[in-house]
């Protein structure tokens, strides 16, 4: 969040703004000293004092005033001389000793409207007479505009320029600079808004700047040739600008907008319609009576919104705007006093400067807000990245835990199965062997046979643990290697027929062991009981699965045999793993067919 300025700093801020404003507005500006400054003149043959103001009695014609000013020139003193006018407004024509020296209609001037601007003209030596010289200054206005002429200073150019330069900077150069900046900034804001329509504050303020630029156009272009209607249009733009500014104030400060706010648009719309429909005089009356007071109220509304937001929400930005508004109020009071001739010493208008200052500050704050928005996005991204990384880490951890759990479960299940296998199988066989050995009439070959059977089973258990993936062929190859010695020992030839087999998904060690045991049993039966010298084991794909056939060519029968080994346990194992077992026998031999499915259910 924005850091809140401390109350002491705020008092300092507002105090400084107000003090500076009062000083700038009301402190007398430096004037050239008495011998050069001339405030008495002759107007229409009668003595008259300067400054002087003329108001047009007839709106269509304007007013006109001509002053004769005499001064004394001593040649060869203090370099070239110049004329310095601290302020004039409207058209000005200057003649020296009868010679035309300056004419705003020829030279152009930024001071054609109500603004007063300074003037500085070098006086050519050739036109200057030794002793008394006569200056003739004519101010002419047109339309409703007032004309103004300040006291005149005539003296050494170098000395007078020191008075002229700061005034020209304040009232001509600075406004022009700010106006140029506003043109550029309006373009930037409108571009931002164009790329990001949600930011209506940017659009509103961009339009405010456009209005300001149009309204202040006389600063940049020569409007002395413009018609009255054209000049009045500039005033109209001023009304649009104030309404835009009020809307912007609500947007920028995020103040809830009252429902009547859109009605404000009635003011500029009505003013524009009246301008086009009413005759000049009627429009002027309408504007004075309604439009200008209303516009002033709108201006106060916008300022009020800013000030209220500053005091409600605080923050340097809003307080900065409020301070500039306070400063503008001082300038406005000054301008009102000037307008009503309460401050006749120096007729300058500061409202324009105040408005430009306000717009500049607000514009800078918009840039700041833009940068802050980008920063917020960055921080948000940063946080989001952090959160995503955290979530990923948590997810990975959970996944790893899950995998570890699953692996542990799998290991536990396998251990249980193996333990079961060893208990039921090997332990029992070893016990039986021990019992046989401890018997008084131990049959050693029988003991050896039992031990070998136990060893065979142990090998099957070990073989079944080999990870062969889902590759049944590899697993059966291992089985072949296991039974080959047994068959060789009994001089039985193995006819091994292997085909290319499909993978059997879900083939896991417990299934492999069951398959091994079924086949081992089949082979053992054939070796013991068939009396055949040949054994065929054929493996081939069959009906989507795999078929394994153990075929002997002896005289065995399918009937259950002595010793507990047998078909019942083979059948049970086959059923347990979802395989089909068929045993057929006739005079020519026995055929054990194990049909394995194309895939087994997953192990978990």
């Amino acid at each position, binding site marked *: 969040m924005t850091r809140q300025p401390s109350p002491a700093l705020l008092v300092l801020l507002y105090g400084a703004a107000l003090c500076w404003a009062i000083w700038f507005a009301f402190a007398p500006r430096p004037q050239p000293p008495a011998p050069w400054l001339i405030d008495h003149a002759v107007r229409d043959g009668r003595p008259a004092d300067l400054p002087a103001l003329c108001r047009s009695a007839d709106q269509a014609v304007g007013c006109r005033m001509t002053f004769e000013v005499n001064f004394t020139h001593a040649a060869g003193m203090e370099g070239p001389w110049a004329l310095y006018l601290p302020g004039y407004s409207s058209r000005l024509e200057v003649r020296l000793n009868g010679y035309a020296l300056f004419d705003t209609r020829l030279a152009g001037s930024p001071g054609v409207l109500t603004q007063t601007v300074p003037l500085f003209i070098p006086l050519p030596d050739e036109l200057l007479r030794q002793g008394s010289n006569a200056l003739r200054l004519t101010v002419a206005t047109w339309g409703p505009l007032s004309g103004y002429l300040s006291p005149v200073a005539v003296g050494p150019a170098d000395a007078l320029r020191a008075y002229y330069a700061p005034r020209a900077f304040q009232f001509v150069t600075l406004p022009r600079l700010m106006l140029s900046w506003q043109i550029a900034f309006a373009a930037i804001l409108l571009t931002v808004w164009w790329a990001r329509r949600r930011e209506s504050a940017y659009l509103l303020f961009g339009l405010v700047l456009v209005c300001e630029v149009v309204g202040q156009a006389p600063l940049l272009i020569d409007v002395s040739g413009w018609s009255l209607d054209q000049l009045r249009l500039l005033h109209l733009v001023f009304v649009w600008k104030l309404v835009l500014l009020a809307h912007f104030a609500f947007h920028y400060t995020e103040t809830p907008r009252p429902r009547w706010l859109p009605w404000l648009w009635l003011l500029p719309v009505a003013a524009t319609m009246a301008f086009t429909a009413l005759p000049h005089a009627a429009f002027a009356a309408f504007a004075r009576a309604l439009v200008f007071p209303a516009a002033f109220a709108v201006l106060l509304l916008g300022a009020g919104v800013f000030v209220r937001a500053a005091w409600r929400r605080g923050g340097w930005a809003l307080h900065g705007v409020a301070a500039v508004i306070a400063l503008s109020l001082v300038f406005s009071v000054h301008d009102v006093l000037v307008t009503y001739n309460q401050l006749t010493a120096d007729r300058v208008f500061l409202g324009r400067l105040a408005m430009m200052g306000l717009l500049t500050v607000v514009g800078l704050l918009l840039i700041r807000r833009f940068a802050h928005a980008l920063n917020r996005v960055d921080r948000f991204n940063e946080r989001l990245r952090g959160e995503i990384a955290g979530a990923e880490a948590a997810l990975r951890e959970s996944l790893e835990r899950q995998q570890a759990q699953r692996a542990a479960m799998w290991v536990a299940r396998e251990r249980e199965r193996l333990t079961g296998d060893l208990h039921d199988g090997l332990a029992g066989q070893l016990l039986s062997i021990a019992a046989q050995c401890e018997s008084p009439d131990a049959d050693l070959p029988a003991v050896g046979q039992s031990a070998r059977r136990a060893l065979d089973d142990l090998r099957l258990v070990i073989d079944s643990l080999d990870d062969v993936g889902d590759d049944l*062929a590899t697993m059966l190859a291992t089985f072949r*290697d296991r039974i080959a010695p047994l068959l*060789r020992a009994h001089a039985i030839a193995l006819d091994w027929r*292997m085909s290319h087999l499909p993978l059997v998904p879900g083939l896991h060690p417990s299934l492999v062991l069951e398959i091994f045991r079924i086949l081992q049993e089949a082979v053992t039966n054939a070796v013991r009981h068939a009396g055949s010298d040949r054994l065929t084991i054929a493996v081939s794909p069959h009906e989507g699965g795999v078929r394994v056939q153990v075929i002997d060519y002896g005289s065995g029968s399918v009937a259950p045999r002595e010793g507990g080994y047998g078909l019942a346990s083979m059948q049970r194992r086959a059923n347990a793993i979802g395989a089909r077992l068929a045993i057929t026998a006739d005079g020519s031999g026995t055929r054990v067919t194990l049909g394995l499915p194309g895939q087994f259910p997953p192990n978990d």
Partner: protein
Amino acid sequence: MSEQTVSIVLVEDDPPTRERLSRALAGEPRFALLAAAGSLAEARAALARHVPTVLITDLRLPDGHGTDLIRETRQATPATEILVISVLGDERSVVTAIRAGAAGYLLKDGTPEELVGAVHDLLAGHSPISAAIARYLIRRIQGPHEPEEEKPQLTPREIEILYGIAKGFTYNDIAEQLGLSPHTIPTHIKNIYRKLEVHSRSEAVFAALSHRLIRLGE
């Protein structure tokens, strides 16, 4: 096969098994059992005295490991063929022995005929191989974790043969599929074994590997 006497040194720590194997070997008239040792020390002593045609040794001995004996023998008397006695014919111990220089293995519980047959096969240049061993070799050759320089440099044909064996095809099937004569298959296997053998230049690598393999086998 030559009609000369085949001299044999047997190393096996379990006395009944040693007895049984000795009996089986003694049953073959052309075999001469020079010594039957029960430990690494005894075996070294016997090999210092004799240079047998065939050395038959167990891997796990009370005072050391059979691979050391195999390696020493391969260096000292390269002509001596070496067979490893394996309880289960499990691929790890067999391949460890092959890498040390053994050319074949025999199962501890094999019949006397099998034992004698294994010795004769070996002398005829045939090395036994099981599907499990073939599978183990394929895994090692194609395993992503195996350092490239430690992978046996087998030809595509040899790898095909290993595949065939691993998948349970007979020598005849494999020969037919590869367009070979069935008789050449054992020769190829013997070559594979020789390629697996680690020579002294990479002794250190082998030692590390064999130790790891032994640990895995325990």
